[in-house]
Each structure stands twice: as C-alpha cells, then as structure tokens.
C-alpha cells in the first residue's frame, strides 16, 4: 500500500534556515494562543529568535513553543519547517540586527518539514 506524502527530511530544508523567508513563534498565554513574528538567526545549529521588546506577551523560560519557518504562495512552492521545542534565554548572536529586542533560543524537541514541490508516493508505514 502506498500513500502520497509532502513530508521531507528536515535536514533537506536547511535552505529555509540560511535565508529565513518568514518566521514566527507560537505559544500559550493567558489570552489564548499567541502568534508572534520574529527574526530568526540559525547560528551554530542553534535556533535564536528575537522578539521585539515592546511585544505585549513573550514566552517564559522553559515554556513550550512552536517555531514555524515557511515560504511560498503557490501550491507546489509551499515549504515549511515546524519545530516544537522549549525556549530558554539567550544572548544576541554575532551580527544580530541592532534592535530593541529580547533573544531566546528554541531548543527543539520535535522537528518536521514539508515541501509540496516534492509530493511523491511512499510505502504506507501507518
């Protein structure tokens, strides 16, 4: 039995980390889910995210977050990296954009990636 998949090895989505098209963090707050656009710097294999100082809400140390890096508009161009992890405080990476922001590191627990341009049949492993 075969199925069609969009999933790819996260390692092959490295291009998204080298030239981050758009990135955001999601976390829970007292007001519900919070989606926050961020600047992401992938430095020495670490996921460093800057959140504007003026942001109403920020994730606390150890809090579970999802980091999404995605690109594309048309169907077969849609690609993404979806990283579930925990945040910890971090210092700004070298050559970080000078801005009034807080830096956090997302420590990954689970990473998945997809690329609709690679839709293909694979053996069904369900």
């Amino acid at each position, binding site marked *: 039995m075969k199925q069609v998949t969009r999933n790819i090895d996260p390692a092959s989505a490295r291009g998204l980390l080298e030239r981050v098209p758009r990135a955001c963090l999601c976390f829970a707050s007292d007001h*519900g889910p*919070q989606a926050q*656009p961020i600047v992401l710097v992938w430095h020495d294999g670490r996921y460093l995210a800057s959140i504007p100082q003026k942001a109403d809400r920020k994730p606390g140390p150890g809090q*579970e977050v999802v980091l999404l890096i995605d690109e*594309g508009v048309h169907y077969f161009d849609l690609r993404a990296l979806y990283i579930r992890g925990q945040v910890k405080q971090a210092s700004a990476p070298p050559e970080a954009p000078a801005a009034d922001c807080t830096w956090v590191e997302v420590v990954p627990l689970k990473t998945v990636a997809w690329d609709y341009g690679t839709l293909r*049949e694979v053996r069904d492993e369900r």
Partner: protein
Amino acid sequence: MNVDDPAMLDILRRCMVARIATLSRNGRPSINPLYFVYMPGHIWLGTVEWTLAARNVKADPRVSVLLEVERDRSPRLVLRISGRAIVRTDPKGQRSYNLRVARKYVLTPGGIRHYLAHLRQLKLRRHYAAQNVSMGQPCIIEVTPLEAEFLGDEKHG
C-alpha cells in the same frame, strides 16, 4: 484597531498565506500556514477536519492569525488578528470557499502559470487531496476577528 480599517482590509485582500495559532485541549500551542479567503466580517481558512488546527479550534476557539503581503518585503508589516473561530463543514460554505479559493489561487495569471509548470505533479496532488479527504471531511475554520494590530519588522524599526 477597528477590524474594518482600510489598511487591514488591504492586507487581508493581498495576503496569500495566513498562519493560524491555536491551542490544544491541554493548552499546547500549534501554528499552521493555510490558504484563506476574506469574507465580510470573517476569515475562512481551508483545511481538513483531522488536522491539528481544526481539532484545536474545536477544543479552544481562541485563535491568533498572522497575515502579511508576501510580495511586500520592505518594510515588512504584519497584521495580527485575535479572534474566535468555529469549524464549519456545511456543503454550502465549502462550495463557496472552493469557488473563492479557485479565484484567488488558481484562476490568476500567476496561478495558471504555476499549475502549467507543474502539470506532471497534478495527478499526485489529486491523490494527496483524496487521501486527506479519506481521513476526514474538508472544513473551513471561520475566524471572527475581535482585535487587530499591525506589527512592524524589528529589523527595519
């Protein structure tokens, strides 16, 4: 900001991919990029009932949605909408959504060029869609905005 603000409506009309943040029954966060269409007073995002986004909305209707015009790179301006959502599976709504999505994403010069360039993959796309539907009904996440705010890009100040 008023959700009928002209600047907000401009982004809603020109943005192509929305990112919707949701919480599970246990409060675990998730965020997914989805196609959407703007309806007066609502945002309709298309997905399938079994997805995390749809299941989360059923568990907790609070959502946070990010929208930006992908082709406007400088300065980057992101619209964040907070609101409440429901999951709709009614055939009338689904037909209306499908029509609007086709107009927005397929029946445009860019859309037609894109699909012509990927003719060989269309069969796989159909199989993938059928496979998803076999696992659960197509649905619309209908978001009713309650608050909206513009977020600038800190790289640009």
